[in-house]
Every structure is written in structure tokens, then in C-alpha cells.
């Protein structure tokens, strides 16, 4: 995966090497956001101490027209939450086959939702972030190819965006999700100030704890804990191992949404259903939001309500691990089981955007979160400045 990304970088640099620096266009964006919760709890990566890291980032992009309908592009992101280490978010070669049809090969973002592709460019929307209950997709970037085709049906502009590729998601060092064969079809219809989109995506999914060494880890851990391999099997630990190599697992994305924006008033709503078949932990996540914004000169106040509902598999079999000493593996499994309890969360967001400069805006919002299952309520306050350059 890393090798692939590096290869893309090399390919990009190689394709640029024949071009003078003046032929390369540079663009960038930044979101510098501070936030803290009220009342001692934690929410969306913040706690009650003012923190600049979770949503602050700087992006730099270089694009070059190589001639013969080819364009090369590279976008590098540095995020506060990963100690400002640079990551490649886009690295592609684009072929503009006709005026209406183009192909993009390389690393790119998948347009699952209305704001997915440019979610890092905070300037392009009023929120600090698009509703986080909805936009927490298991992954958002793939290495692969996409085709973009646009045409008109009367006054309606119809845009088809089909993406195929491979993705992975490593939430922490102990486990990794792989999505080897995503196919995503995204359709947008636009007429006047109204835009609607439909999305269907499907990928097989595998889940691993260090992947290749997983079975060994279980067996070694079992031995360390004084349990024989046979006993380990009996207590269904091997069931977990089966899951990691089961390629029949799949995840599906269903999205429907619409946005009306006449420049002074906007209303946006999306409904998303993620369905996990044969997955170890999750079975379904449904979420939706509705958002209203009204512009008063340079000021745009907005109000958003969102809700998600997560259904999980029965993970009670993991309770058998309690009291055993399976070192990191056991703790990770217990952590996962606790993370994926059935839950419902509602949020209400009230925010303000102030366009104080042609290329920069100040944003502030306050989010009230209510997790109905755990009965945890939190209030999060965030503010900051977003730019494009």
C-alpha cells in the first residue's frame, strides 16, 4: 500500500520532470480549528482542554497539464492529529478523453457523500466539519481508477462518477480493515439551484489483527495464558481467526441526498445506510442530517440536526476473554467489543461563518451530542479560520 503510494509520487514527479516549474500550478488550503468540550466529557476527539490538533490541517496541491489531454496532480496533507506528518491524499494522472468524459488513475477520494471529495477543504462549506455522525465512513480514499461522465437532459445536468479501487483503514496499530475491490457509482443531477445525488458502493472487506501473524498471535497468546490450542478453539477464539480470512464479508454504501442553494439560503440533507454483511462486529449503520443556512452579507448562521443508529453483531462471546491473559490481542478484542455496542446518537449544531476576506472565513460552532444508549451528553465548542490559496 505504502509502496503503491510512493510509486504514484514517483510517477507524478517523473511526469513533471520534463516540464518547467512555471507549467505547474500550485494551490492550497488550510483549516486551523480549536475546540474543547464543556463539562469535562470528551466528544469527537476533543476533551475539556482547548485543542488545536483534531481538525487542523494544511493541504498543498500541484497540477500540471502534460499536453495530449493528460494532467498530473498531487495533493499532500499535513494534519494536526497525526503530528503534521505529510500524507498523500491525491496522486493521479487524468485523461480527458472528450469534453464530457475523463478518467482518473491513482490515489483519489471517493464521492460517497455530497461533501466527501473536498471534505478537507473547509472553505467550501459552512460547518467546521460536515456532520461527523454521517461522514465517518470506514474509508474515503482509494487507489484505483475512476470515470467521470457528464451530459444534459434538457436543463438537467447529469453527472456519473464511477470509482473502482482498493482501500485500507488502520484506526490504530493493532488492527486494520482492507477493502480490496470497491466499486462505487455516484450520480448527481443538477438543475438551477437544486442538486441531488444517489450513491451505491460495494466492497468486500477483511479485518485483521496484524494480519499474517494473527493465528500465531492467538495461539501464542493462548499458550502464554495456559490454554491449549484445542481449548482456544473451544472458546471460539478461532472463530475470530476465521473472520479475518473470510473474503465473503462485504460492506455496502447507500446514499441519497439533495441540496438547494440559491446563494442566500441553503438547505441540505442526506440519508446514508452502511450495511455490513458477514462482518465480525457491525451489521448496519443508518444516519441522516438536515441543515439550514441563511446568508446575511458576510455572515452565514446555520443549524443542523443529525442522527445515527448503529447495530452490531452479538459480541458477547468475547466476554470469555475476560480474565485471560492474551496480552495485546485480548485487550484489543475487548476494546473493539466495547466500541461497537448498539448505539444511537443525535446532534444539534448551531454555527456561524463569517467571510471576512475573499479567500478566508472565520467559523464557529457549538454541537450538542446525545448518545441515547450510554446516556452520555456532551457539548463541544469549536472555532477557527479556513483559507484557500
Amino acid at each position, binding site marked *: 500500500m505504502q509502496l503503491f503510494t510512493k510509486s504514484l509520487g514517483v510517477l507524478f514527479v517523473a511526469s513533471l520532470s520534463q516540464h518547467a516549474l512555471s507549467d505547474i*500550478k500550485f*494551490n492550497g*488550503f488550510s483549516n486551523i480549528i480549536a475546540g474543547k468540550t464543556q463539562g469535562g466529557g470528551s466528544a469527537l476527539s476533543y476533551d475539556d482542554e482547548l485543542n488545536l490538533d483534531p481538525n487542523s490541517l494544511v*493541504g498543498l*496541491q500541484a*497540477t500540471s497539464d502534460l499536453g495530449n489531454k493528460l*494532467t498530473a*496532480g498531487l*495533493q499532500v496533507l499535513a494534519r494536526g492529529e497525526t503530528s503534521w506528518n505529510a500524507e498523500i491524499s*491525491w496522486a*493521479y494522472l*487524468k485523461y480527458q478523453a472528450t*469534453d464530457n468524459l*475523463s478518467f*482518473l488513475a491513482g490515489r*483519489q*477520494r471517493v464521492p460517497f457523500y455530497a461533501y466527501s*471529495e*473536498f471534505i*478537507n*477543504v473547509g*472553505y*467550501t462549506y459552512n460547518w467546521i466539519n460536515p456532520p461527523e455522525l454521517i461522514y465517518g465512513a470506514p474509508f474515503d480514499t482509494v487507489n484505483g481508477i475512476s470515470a*467521470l461522465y*457528464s451530459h444534459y437532459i434538457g436543463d438537467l*445536468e447529469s453527472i456519473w462518477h464511477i470509482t473502482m479501487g482498493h482501500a485500507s483503514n488502520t484506526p490504530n496499530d493493532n488492527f486494520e480493515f482492507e477493502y480490496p475491490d470497491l466499486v462505487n457509482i455516484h450520480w448527481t443531477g443538477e438543475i438551477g439551484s437544486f442538486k441531488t445525488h444517489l450513491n451505491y458502493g460495494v466492497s468486500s472487506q477483511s479485518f485483521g489483527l496484524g494480519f499474517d501473524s494473527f493465528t500465531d498471535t492467538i495461539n501464542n497468546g493462548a499458550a502464554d495464558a495456559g490454554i491449549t490450542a484445542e481449548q482456544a478453539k473451544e472458546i471460539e477464539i478461532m472463530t475470530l481467526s476465521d473472520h479475518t480470512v473470510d473474503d465473503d464479508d462485504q460492506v455496502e454504501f447507500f446514499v441519497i441526498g439533495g441540496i438547494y442553494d440559491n*446563494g442566500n439560503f441553503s438547505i441540505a440533507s442526506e440519508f446514508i445506510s452502511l450495511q455490513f454483511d458477514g462482518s465480525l462486529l457491525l451489521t448496519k449503520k443508518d444516519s441522516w442530517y438536515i441543515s439550514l443556512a441563511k446568508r446575511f452579507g458576510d455572515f452565514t448562521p446555520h443549524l443542523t440536526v443529525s442522527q445515527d443508529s448503529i447495530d452490531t453483531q452479538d459480541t458477547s462471546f468475547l466476554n470469555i476473554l475476560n480474565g485471560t491473559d492474551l496480552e495485546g490481542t485480548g485487550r484489543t478484542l475487548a476494546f473493539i467489543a466495547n466500541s461497537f455496542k448498539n448505539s444511537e446518537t443525535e446532534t444539534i449544531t448551531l454555527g456561524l461563518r463569517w*467571510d471576512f476576506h*475573499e*479567500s478566508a472565513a472565520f467559523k464557529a460552532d457549538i454541537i450538542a451530542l446525545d448518545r441515547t444508549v450510554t446516556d452520555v451528553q456532551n457539548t463541544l465548542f469549536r472555532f477557527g479560520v479556513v483559507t*484557500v490559496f
Partner: protein
Amino acid sequence: MFNKMKNMTFKITAASIILAISHIAFSEIAVVVHPSNTQDLNKDDVKKIFLGKTKSFSSGKKIAPFNLSTDRPERETFESGILNKNAKQMKTYWSKIIFTGKGSPPAEKNTSESLKSSIASNPNSIGYLKKEDVDSSVKVVLTF
């Protein structure tokens, strides 16, 4: 004396503001192409060109659109009158396109003179000028 001067300054300022407003309101914009271009273009065609949705003239030649820089009042008149978008909406529109590998905005010229000479020297170009800045080096396809 001082009060009188102050009063006069106010009147002059007020008069110049009114003049400036009427100048913007009555200054007509002309959409211009190279004189050799024979294609008829309506408001919707021009809109699609400047939003990057139409990329070629009917001749099949790739269009080279030129914008005036954002500090030019003609740009605001053009974007609100033809594209139906304000400056912030335009910035947002192009940011979404630029940062998702979908395209790049029209090239920008700082003065109407340099825009006019770019149009006059490129058979596939299109731009806009104040009507009084138009001369025979370019062809008007639309005014508003």
C-alpha cells in the same frame, strides 16, 4: 468656514458615490470573442463556458476563457449577471473543482487592455469587457 467646507466635502462625496453607483449600474458588459469566431452564443452558452461545463466551441476547438481579476468591478457584474453567483460562491465552486482533480478556472487578466489583446490574439478565446472598452480587435457576441 470650516463647517461650510465640511458640508461641501460631504456634498462632493455624496455626489461621487451616486455617480459611482450609477456608473456600475449602467455600465454595460460585452462578452467578446476573436473576430474570426462565427458561433452564436447566448447567455446560457457563456455561463457553461465560464463554469467549465462547455470546453469546446462547435468547431471542436478547445475554448480559452479569460476572466478579469477579482478586484475589477466588471467581474462582479459578469458573475452576478451571467453566472448568477456571488464572489464567495465562485470561490467555493472552483475550490471544489480544483481540489478534486476536475479542472481549473479560466485564466485571469489584470486589465481590460491585456484581456482584450489576449482575445485578439487567440482565435479560440472568450472574455468580457465594459462596452466602452470594446474596439474592432474583438467581436461582441452578447451584451447585458
